[in-house]
């Protein structure tokens, strides 16, 4: 298992459901818990993943997400069981939509 910590600049996101959870720690899947943080213009992410050595891939996926979605003011915790970048992006969008009260 590997633990990864990241911080990205991101536009503030409005919150409705805090905390929000989506996904399951199953094979090729992950769970994402979104909570409110103290920095309104930043998104902090902590990942625990079963797959070692993919830190740069995580950084790229999360950076792209934090740029394309307003995610500032959140702290995101992820438990991962080998999800692909596409699944990670989908779940992040799902979790953030739920955090804003919408769901997908």
């Amino acid at each position, binding site marked *: 298992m590997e633990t990864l910590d990241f911080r990205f600049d991101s536009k503030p996101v409005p919150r409705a459901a805090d*905390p929000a*959870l989506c996904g399951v*720690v199953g094979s090729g*899947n992950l769970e994402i818990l979104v909570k409110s943080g103290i920095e309104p213009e930043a998104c902090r992410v902590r990942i625990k993943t*079963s797959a070692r050595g993919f830190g740069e891939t995580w950084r790229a996926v999360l950076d792209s997400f934090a740029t394309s979605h307003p995610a500032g003011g959140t702290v995101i915790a992820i*438990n991962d069981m080998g999800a692909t970048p596409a699944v990670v992006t989908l779940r992040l969008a799902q979790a953030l939509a739920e955090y804003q009260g919408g769901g997908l």
Partner: protein
Amino acid sequence: MIASLAARHSWFEATARARLAGLLDPGSFSEILPPAESNPSPHLALLDLPGAFDDGVVVCYGQLGKRPIFAIAQEGQFMGGAVGEIHGAKIVGMLRRAAQEKPAAVLFLIDSGGVRLHEANAGLIAISEIMRAVLDARAAGVPVIALVGGSCGAFGGMGIVAKLCSAIVISEEGRLALSGPEVIETVAGVEEFDSKDRALVWRVTGGKHRYLMGDCAMLVEDDIAAFRSGATEFLAGWSEPVPSVAHLRAGQQTLENRLAAYASYRDGLQVWAALGVAEPESVPLLDRDALVALKEGLPT
């Protein structure tokens, strides 16, 4: 047909949280120890495995048909719904609380292969505590209804727990047994049981077989709404005597009679024929309503 399938929300494919969302009265779900307030298993972390915030089980208050109930839902996609120390403690806590607070029922959404082997003795102890807590809740007058229809079924220790509940509601997709098919094949050989033969696995452990054998009180469609209406209907008319040693002895006798009658059979087809089913080979293709009608027409 296509419209009705589109309207259906499969219990088998849903997560534990999605099942609860569709099972309970809307807005009544109130989780105890939600993910943001709990910690993943320390045992899995020691083994370098990622845990889940809720350790694979959701415990909550809720309502069913406006009656207060407690619910416990195992997540089969996380480690096969297996019972570890925290997972087990959450279930035991909920059952003990039910014995004190006496809700109308505990709904136990079982989806588990049994003990989480990574947590060894802690998991085994948890299972035995769950067994005792189920019986204590029932002795306090709270029915515990097992709902079985997930991808992991109810196996190992959780198979025993399911049978200790007041009643079991199962779908055709649900499975119930002690040793899982792969375990039997590994221990006794493929001649004894071919775990790759999915049709055989379902003919021996699946919901239809369990319902025909009288192991499950109700057979429902693989549909969250069907589990909801089944559980509601069931609770409305439910009463049971307090569990007693005499009851357990009678149950034991039934099992011994079953063993004497069917021990030499290799397949559900043979058992169904012995039960009086005229065309046993047609059973796997029957829909839920036709199978219930067939069961009601069987000699007793």
